[in-house]
């Protein structure tokens, strides 16, 4: 029991930080109230340091994922905290400072905003430690429920309320679908423990095929979770919600629920295993194969549709946030290809053939790079008479940005090229791993579609590059936000994207960590088969040995 407390130490630290932030953010004194953000950052830092030193959990279906996933959560969370500064209560705090209003905690959102942010990250960390379907469900909901509120309170405009309502109702639908899937999975295997499910499914597959109820449960769970990762049948909310929420919150929505969804999908797929014979739902003779056929077909269809729909619709957008929302859908599709490819069975095969490691590394790279592009949107603004500010969200607003606002312009150029996956940048290495892991698993058709889609994506990412870099500015330089930490977050993520060019060893270390995190223990098929054959032999009369 005490070992569980050690494993959950980052979550506990983050939760206690949440409690402190919740109270401090309501303090009548402005100096104390403003500490909410630094305290949240400190909590994330401590949680990250604790996470790196967490031991592997043999009771988890993904035994090595905890240090990597939690450290990634804390690291990207630190960037997000910098970006979230000044999102809520801006005009209210200004009025209080001018002495027009007396501070009344019931009219502020600061405490809730940062507390909900930390709650969501706590949920993400709990997802990584999940050993049980019920735990996984609660963790996924802890990720999502705060984000609905954050999207709603992020601006004082009607579009945010619309975004929040859409997000909440579609999110509830998604949650209902995967909860139903979890229930069927429990019905089909008789346990909610993920390792128990893994052994039950392997046993079923060895003795003639997976129970159809369990199979239906797995497919429903995957489709329900595809809401969280914004994959195609459940992607309709993405553009509206990302556009309606303030840019810092959109940056968070593109990382936190997506990562939680992918970790949950990995857990469920690891319970099924990648050792099935192609074209069937029985185990492959040599123990090296793919996912069961019905799951494979479902996921491959989702991956292809997600990539294509995301990229094609992104071509049509005029709004930067909508464009980035569709690009986030497309990136989900890319990652699904590596998820289908699965981990390498051969020992010491390395990151280039480990699909789960590739997904985990891609999530980190995508999270960092995406924060840079959203930071530029969060930094440019059009002042409003009421003290709130309108974000500049049109592609035309980027025209000539490298000359008018060089720092923001270059952050946009570097991060857009990073999302595109231009060779020396960080995004290239992430995409490279997706390709190699899918090729080594023999998914050539999916790799070809992935390549074609990357080519389509170049068109709209290059718009984000050429508009600031090559075009002449029109009119005056756009106003920038007074919150310097937002610019700092953008510069930091651009610097991380450039980090891959200099051989510092940090990127290699991250890749190795991702590889280790994505290594799973497959079900002990031989032992299960042996026990089944032994049972079959026991029923038969002892054969007479002929000498």
């Amino acid at each position, binding site marked *: *029991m*005490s070992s569980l*407390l050690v494993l959950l130490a980052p979550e506990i630290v983050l*939760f206690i930080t949440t*409690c402190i932030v*919740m*109270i401090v953010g*309501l*303090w009548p004194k402005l100096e104390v109230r403003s500490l909410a953000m630094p305290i949240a950052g400190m909590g994330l830092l401590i949680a990250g340091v604790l996470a790196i030193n967490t031991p592997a959990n043999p009771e988890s279906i993904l035994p090595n994922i905890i240090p990597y996933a939690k450290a990634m959560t804390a690291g990207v969370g630190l960037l997000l905290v910098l970006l979230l500064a000044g999102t809520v209560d801006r005009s209210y705090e200004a009025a209080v400072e001018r002495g027009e209003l007396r501070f*009344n*905690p*019931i009219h502020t959102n600061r*405490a809730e905003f940062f507390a909900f942010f930390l709650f969501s990250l706590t949920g993400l960390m709990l997802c990584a430690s999940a050993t049980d379907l019920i735990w996984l469900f609660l963790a996924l909901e802890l990720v999502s429920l705060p984000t609905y509120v954050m999207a709603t309170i992020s601006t004082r405009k009607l579009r945010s309320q619309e975004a929040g309502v859409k997000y909440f109702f579609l999110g509830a639908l998604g949650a209902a679908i995967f909860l139903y899937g979890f229930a069927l999975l429990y019905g089909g295997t008789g346990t909610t423990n993920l390792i128990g499910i893994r052994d039950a499914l392997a046993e079923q597959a060895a003795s003639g095929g997976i129970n159809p109820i369990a199979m239906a449960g797995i497919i429903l769970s995957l489709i329900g979770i595809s809401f969280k990762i914004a994959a195609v049948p459940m992607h309709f909310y993405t553009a509206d919600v990302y556009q309606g929420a303030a840019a810092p919150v959109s940056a968070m929505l593109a990382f936190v629920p997506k990562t939680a969804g992918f970790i949950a999908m990995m857990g469920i797929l690891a319970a099924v295993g990648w050792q099935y014979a192609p074209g069937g739902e029985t185990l492959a003779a040599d123990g090296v194969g793919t996912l069961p056929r019905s799951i494979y077909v479902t996921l491959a269809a989702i991956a292809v549709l997600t990539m294509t729909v995301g990229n094609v619709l992104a071509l049509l957008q005029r709004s930067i946030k909508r464009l980035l929302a569709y690009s986030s859908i497309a990136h989900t599709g890319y990652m699904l290809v590596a998820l289908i490819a699965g981990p390498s069975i051969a020992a010491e095969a390395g990151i280039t053939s480990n699909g789960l490691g590739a997904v985990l590394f891609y999530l980190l790279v995508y999270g960092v790079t995406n924060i840079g592009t959203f930071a530029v949107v969060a930094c440019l603004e059009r002042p409003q008479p009421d003290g709130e500010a309108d974000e500049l969200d049109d592609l035309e607003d980027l025209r000539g940005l490298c000359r008018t606002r060089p720092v923001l312009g270059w952050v946009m150029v570097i991060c857009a090229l990073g999302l595109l996956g231009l060779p020396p940048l960080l995004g290239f290495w992430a995409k490279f791993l997706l390709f190699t892991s899918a090729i080594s698993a023999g998914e050539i058709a999916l790799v070809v579609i992935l390549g074609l889609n990357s080519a389509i994506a170049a068109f709209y990412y290059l718009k984000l590059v050429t508009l600031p870099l090559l075009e002449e500015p029109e009119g005056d330089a756009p106003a920038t936000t007074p919150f310097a930490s937002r610019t700092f977050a953008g510069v930091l993520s651009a610097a991380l994207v450039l980090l891959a060019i200099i051989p510092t060893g940090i990127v290699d270390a991250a890749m190795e960590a991702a590889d280790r995190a994505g290594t799973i223990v497959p079900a002990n098929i031989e032992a299960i088969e042996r026990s089944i054959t032994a049972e079959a032999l026991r029923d038969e009369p002892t054969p007479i040995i002929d000498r």
Partner: protein
Amino acid sequence: MLHPLTTLASQPNVALDQYLPLAVIIVGAVGFAVANIVLTKIIGPSRRGANKGMSYESGMNPVGTARKRFNVRFYLIAMVFLVFDVEIIFLYPWATTFPNLDPANPDAGIWLFRIFFFLFTTIVAYVYGFRKGVFNFD
């Protein structure tokens, strides 16, 4: 020929036995509802009048606009109440099992710590409500 049937009948039906408590609950629930209706018909005084005939005799007036406003503080108080409600739900099973724990058990301290941690979260929720001004009626 009848042998399998007779042996089946002579064996206690284990599967159905397990459902006996469920049957008791169902009978109890239906019986309670029916008994309430029947008993009010028999022993309840039957008075009639304008106020008596209303849907909520002592509650809100069901006639008039449906867009009547409630003070939002009702909901805030209800939520603070929920905090304690949930607390009791979790404390009760803990309180009934904790005394059975062997005092020499090394996990005893962790058991105690966990429930204190849980109580701490409840207190934080209460302090949050207090600072947010839920209890200020002005």
